[in-house]
């Protein structure tokens, strides 16, 4: 049966758009490669930005901070929309039952994150994303929206540049299933896993939806802008939230000296740390002076994670840290209605580029983006579906995914190598020649794909196959990141070129790529 709105991905963006599409009268189906509550959204700790009280803050300040952090290449109209809708978004979440932390005056508590001029991030201890995600999930369960778990997107089906369905792999059975739909929302998250072990992200953040939307004819933009979070645990890349610095944490080098303003935007703090590391310094986050009571009250997860993964207790010891890939600003190019170049294909969340983050995302704006644009995408996709009265039926396709089962190259090794190369060459400091050499390397990996494949031949829950398909998507996206990073011959936000260390006026624009290459 044909669905009005088919949503691929079930994190905060997918679930929010599902609720709004449903509310607007559409039949909705959600497809996820995991289960909804396992999404990357669960890992967002710091908070969601919204100006709730205009005594000491204003929507104008929120807009100003966001624009400043974006370094001139954001869409001002989109940012105005994001910040103006923010208070409503938080109120909506509150009405659904999100357990936000409260103040003594019984209002929603807010804290200061990097780059913000006021305490603006609403939070639920350091489990903000987790609690938002689970509450959204419960609300979706309340409806008749169908959730299909453990299905992996293989192809977005189109006819005359309009979507008409999706082909997915049922991970449990190994069978290919096709779903007919009037409109499709891609809400599959970012691509930080390109950096393999040098990212805070879930193993699922492999950018599948971006790669497949691109293949289906959508454009991508700002792919070169990848945010490095300054404070990940040194050995495991596990995130220590920015709220640790917001609360007054220090960043120290081996000599115990502070060397940067901890509350600068993430790109600046990450670069400052990178420079110290290059000098041979070890870097630490120090929250000892905040005291045990405060840490247990406000940062309980950070204490637990530091103990578990670094064997240290931040109440008494320094936390060893390094910057790692955390958020991908770029993604599927969308218009002001969240629609891509393919008719009926919408995108929202980290996989989409609404141009509200520009060259560097502000902490607390990503959860916000999910809710604000999730609503808009849900409404628009429902509206679009309503106007489709006739659609070409999708053709039934093959039953199984065919992959090379006698590979001569181990893709797991290449996946690890890709991560190492990207962390070294396409991270905080970049250089033209090295980027070009890296692109060459990636092109070679892509050429080698026919020699890679799977060694597990089972149809049932074959994660070797899923990981290989994810890896192929990541290779495609790595290429796009490099094309963007080479084309942007300047430094801006998270993209810093040592061979062109200044911002250039000629680059106050997006680098947009489609299958033909960079769009002039």
């Amino acid at each position, binding site marked *: 049966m044909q669905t009005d709105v088919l949503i691929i991905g079930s994190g905060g963006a997918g679930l929010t758009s599902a609720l709004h599409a449903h509310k607007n009268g559409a039949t909705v189906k959600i497809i996820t490669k*995991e*289960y909804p*509550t*396992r*999404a*990357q959204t*669960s*890992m967002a700790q710091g908070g969601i930005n919204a100006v709730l009280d205009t005594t000491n803050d204003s929507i104008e300040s929120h807009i100003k901070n966001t624009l400043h952090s974006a370094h001139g290449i954001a869409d001002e109209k989109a940012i105005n929309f994001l910040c103006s809708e923010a208070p409503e978004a938080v*109120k909506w979440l*509150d*009405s*659904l*039952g999100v*357990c*936000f*932390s*409260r*103040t*003594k005056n*019984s*209002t929603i508590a807010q804290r200061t994150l990097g780059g913000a001029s006021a305490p603006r991030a609403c939070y*639920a*201890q350091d*489990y903000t994303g*987790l*609690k938002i995600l*689970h*509450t959204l999930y*419960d*609300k979706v*369960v*309340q409806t008749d929206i169908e959730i299909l*778990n453990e299905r992996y997107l293989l192809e977005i089906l189109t006819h005359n540049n309009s979507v008409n369905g999706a082909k997915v792999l049922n991970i*449990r059975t190994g069978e290919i299933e096709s779903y007919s739909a009037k409109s499709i929302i891609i809400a599959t998250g970012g691509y930080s896993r390109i950096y393999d072990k040098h990212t805070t992200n*879930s*193993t*699922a953040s492999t950018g599948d939806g971006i790669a497949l939307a691109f293949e289906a004819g959508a454009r991508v933009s700002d792919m070169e802008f990848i945010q490095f979070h300054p404070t990940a645990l040194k050995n*495991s890349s*596990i*995130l220590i939230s920015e709220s640790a610095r917001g609360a007054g944490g220090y960043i120290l080098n081996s000599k115990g000296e502070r060397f940067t303003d901890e509350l600068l935007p993430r790109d600046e703090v990450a670069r400052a740390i990178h420079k110290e590391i290059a000098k041979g310094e070890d870097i630490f986050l120090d929250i000892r002076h905040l005291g045990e009571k405060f840490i247990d009250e406000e940062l309980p*997860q950070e204490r*637990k*994670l530091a103990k*578990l*993964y670094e*064997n240290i207790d931040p109440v008494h010891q320094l936390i060893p840290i390094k910057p790692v890939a955390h958020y991908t600003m770029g993604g599927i190019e969308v218009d002001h209605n969240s629609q891509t170049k393919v008719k009926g294909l919408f995108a929202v969340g980290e996989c989409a580029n609404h141009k509200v983050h520009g060259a560097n995302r502000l902490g607390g704006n990503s959860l916000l983006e999910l809710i604000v644009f999730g609503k808009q995408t849900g409404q628009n996709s429902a509206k679009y579906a309503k106007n489709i009265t006739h659609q070409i039926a999708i053709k039934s396709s093959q039953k199984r995914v065919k992959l090379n089962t006698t590979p001569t190259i181990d893709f*797991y090794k290449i996946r*690890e190598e890709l991560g190492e190369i990207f962390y070294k060459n396409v991270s905080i400091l970049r250089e033209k020649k090295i980027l070009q050499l890296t692109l060459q390397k990636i092109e070679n990996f892509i050429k080698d794909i026919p020699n890679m494949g*799977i*060694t*597990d031949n*089972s149809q*049932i*829950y*074959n*994660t*070797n196959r899923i990981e290989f398909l994810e890896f192929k998507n990541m290779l495609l996206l790595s290429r796009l990141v490099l094309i963007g990073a080479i084309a942007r011959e300047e430094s801006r936000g998270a993209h810093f070129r040592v061979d062109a260390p200044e911002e250039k006026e000629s680059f106050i624009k997006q680098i947009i790529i489609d299958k033909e290459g960079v769009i002039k």
Partner: protein
Amino acid sequence: MKVTIQRETPTEFEVKGVENITLLSLLNTIKTTQDSSLTFASGCRSSVCGSCSMRVNEKEVLACSYKVQEGDFIEPLKNMPVIRDLVVNMDSAYEKNKKAKAWLSSIIQNSSLTQEDEKINELQSDCILCASCYSTCPVFSVNEDFLGPFTLTRVWKYVSDKRETDEKNMIDVIQTDGIWSCTLCNECTLVCPQDISSKADIEKLRSKSAMAGYSDPNFNSFGGFGFDGSPVF
């Protein structure tokens, strides 16, 4: 490091030169270097996504937060159908949230919650749905329709929420195959990676139910559970 993993049959794996690593890290090493068919789920690596719950030496753990030990015996969660190796199908377990109507039924704009109100269900809202509690719960062996620990904790989360105005409806739903089916054995509490006690939440739901006029059906009939938690017939 040698460990045994319950696949179709128990299978021993050895990874040399590792110590003080998480079980998830060990499983990843085995998968990428020894046996690509080893099947398990994982996600965040930081104990919030609930993907990698499994059993080690008969106790539920998150593979990403458990430091693997020499000789460990690793198997999938119980009470849910095994799909392959360490992966179980959680669909029917999660369905119980729907059956129990575990959501906020009233939508109230601009509610005013105090810090104390917020603390009432702060812990319950830390749940990551890893289903460790579901796996360890002994009730399922006699009643597979039991709503189960995480669902009842979720119900308590919403019942106790000051924003919920239709408490009665929620309490009604959990009378059958719900709070009275629990043996209060406390196994769920012992395995919860988030330190939630579903047992305690169920007890709170019982007193709410008593206030709403319900009573323990096990005391009114011949069937039910004995004081030691074992079923009596």
